């Protein structure tokens, strides 16, 4: 696309300058917490006057934070493990059904990503309360899976649209039941999209705060929930240390997956 624009020094300087500005705008708010987290002060101050690792010590020394970290990682993994297979099956039916039925199902399936999170959380709270599931890990998992399925589907639907369905029919005619045809023919060929969908589902859960605030409690509190609560109750640089670690985890996961995909 860029070839269509005049290629001279001035336009190139402008392009690079503009790109740098956008990068800075996107990255600075995230990066500003990094120096904050290494502050020696009891207050959030920028730039810090002295540096230390004391807030990291506080974080790793806190049983509450460690429990939340564990909960969030387990929840993210479980969410991906449940949402991606369900999403894949849903996308296969949408792909096979075609026509109005497919459009309707797709619409219903994608609503959780369109409805405001707070409404979804309130609704979920009442449904789960009736089942006595509020405060349980399972309850939060249900909420996160509901949110992660549309995310997985957005990745998987276009991949399935490009997939040659005759291959599945060929596999079926050669003696494969549905499970073997999906596992042996579709999954291996869609592995890159499935990996992306898994990552997105995992990050959706890891990032989610509203449902967690409503549904999770006590030992089942997630990291984002605890971060919100601690911001409300006390402001000290522990939260900056956690944010930095959190960003590092997400960046690491995305990098690993992206690099694996390239190789």
């Amino acid at each position: 696309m860029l070839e269509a624009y005049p290629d001279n020094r001035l336009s190139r300087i402008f392009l690079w300058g503009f790109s740098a500005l956008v990068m800075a705008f996107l990255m600075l708010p995230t990066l500003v917490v990094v120096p904050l987290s290494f502050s020696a002060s009891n207050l959030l101050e920028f730039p810090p006057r002295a540096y230390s690792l004391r807030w990291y010590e506080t974080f790793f020394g806190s049983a509450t934070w460690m429990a939340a970290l564990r909960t969030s990682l387990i929840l993210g993994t479980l969410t991906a493990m449940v949402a991606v297979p369900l999403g894949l099956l849903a996308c296969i039916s949408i792909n096979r059904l075609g026509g109005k039925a497919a459009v309707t199902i797709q619409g219903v399936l994608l609503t959780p990503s369109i409805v405001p999170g707070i409404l979804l959380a309130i609704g979920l709270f009442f449904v789960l309360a009736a089942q006595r599931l509020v405060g349980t890990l399972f309850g939060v998992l249900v909420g996160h899976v509901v949110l992660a399925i549309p995310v997985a589907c957005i990745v998987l639907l276009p991949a399935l649209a490009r997939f040659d369905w005759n291959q599945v029919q060929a596999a079926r005619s050669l003696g494969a039941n549905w499970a073997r045809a999906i596992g042996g023919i579709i999954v291996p060929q869609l592995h890159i999209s499935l990996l992306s969908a898994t990552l997105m589902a995992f990050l959706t859960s890891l990032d989610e705060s509203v449902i967690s605030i409503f549904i999770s409690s006590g030992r089942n509190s997630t990291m984002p929930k605890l971060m919100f609560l601690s911001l409300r109750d006390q402001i000290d640089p522990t939260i900056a240390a956690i944010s930095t670690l959190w960003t590092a985890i997400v960046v690491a996961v995305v990098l690993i997956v992206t690099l694996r995909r390239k190789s």
Partner: protein
Amino acid sequence: MESLPITIDSVSKSYGTYVALDDVSLDIQAGEFLTLLGPSGSGKTTLLMALAGFVRPDSGKLLLGDRDITRLAPNKRDIGIVFQNYALFPHMNVLANVAYPLALRKMPKAEARRRALDTLARVKLEGLSERNIAALSGGQRQRVALARAIVFEPRVMLMDEPLSALDKNLRETMQYEIRRLHDDLGITTIYVTHDQREALIMSDRIAVMNSGRIQQIDTPQRIYDRPSTRFVAEFMGEANIVAPGLVRRIDGADASRATLMIRAESFHLDEKLVGRDGIALEGTLRAKAFRGENWLLTLALDGGGQEVLVCIPAALASGCGELATGQRVTAYAPAAKVHPLPETIA
């Protein structure tokens, strides 16, 4: 390997208001090579997919031998299918593609490998077993698809326009090879094509389909020479449908009162090449074209101006080059090549 007969008993299938199969009945004998021939939308692929188990008929029955398979899952039918686009598995190499149905049947690896390699040799693909699918030519892919469809010794083979993606020369080679493979294995085969030449060359019998119905089912020769409907006559080749009264008997006897089907290549320009009981058509030359092996003349018949195609082999057409448009021409056809169409034409 035991091959089985197939019975298709009044099978219908509609999609909304579109009728894909309209009360189709057909018996295919064990070991027969039957072709479903028809234009696109005639229902031939729908019928094939119903046999394969991917289309569920609205009504009617499908029997494999004496077993009702109408509602049987595709993976339990033991039918080998060759798809139009081959549908090979690109994430597996040639050997793994061919061994796939054997692996599904839990055959020990060594035996599956041996069987797959034997089958690859049978379709002349020795030495390519470790290749990736992406590294194969169209013809090679076609052979892998064939090998994969026969390696598990299915009792029936279905082929959906398997040669349509190949160029002309390769297509002709593969026509003979598929037929030879069928004769070696003796496997009941249903072959779908829209190419009438391919159907004539390969089949024991041809079922011509149009608008979801079987128009005629017969041997290639009878389908070609003795079509039962105007559609079959015109689909199978250059057919002239001549209205009653435009034809004169050479011997002066009363000509048939039926509508006649005469193939373009049945005509001669020399009366002596046709018997006394032959027929003659008189008209004016509208157009002529040299097509290499023959000349194609277009005559406008006297009395109505109906156009008739006359095809004269180049070897017998020394005079054709000199014919001028507008000139009067008489075309003769032997009685054996004049076929009264059973169907009445409005």
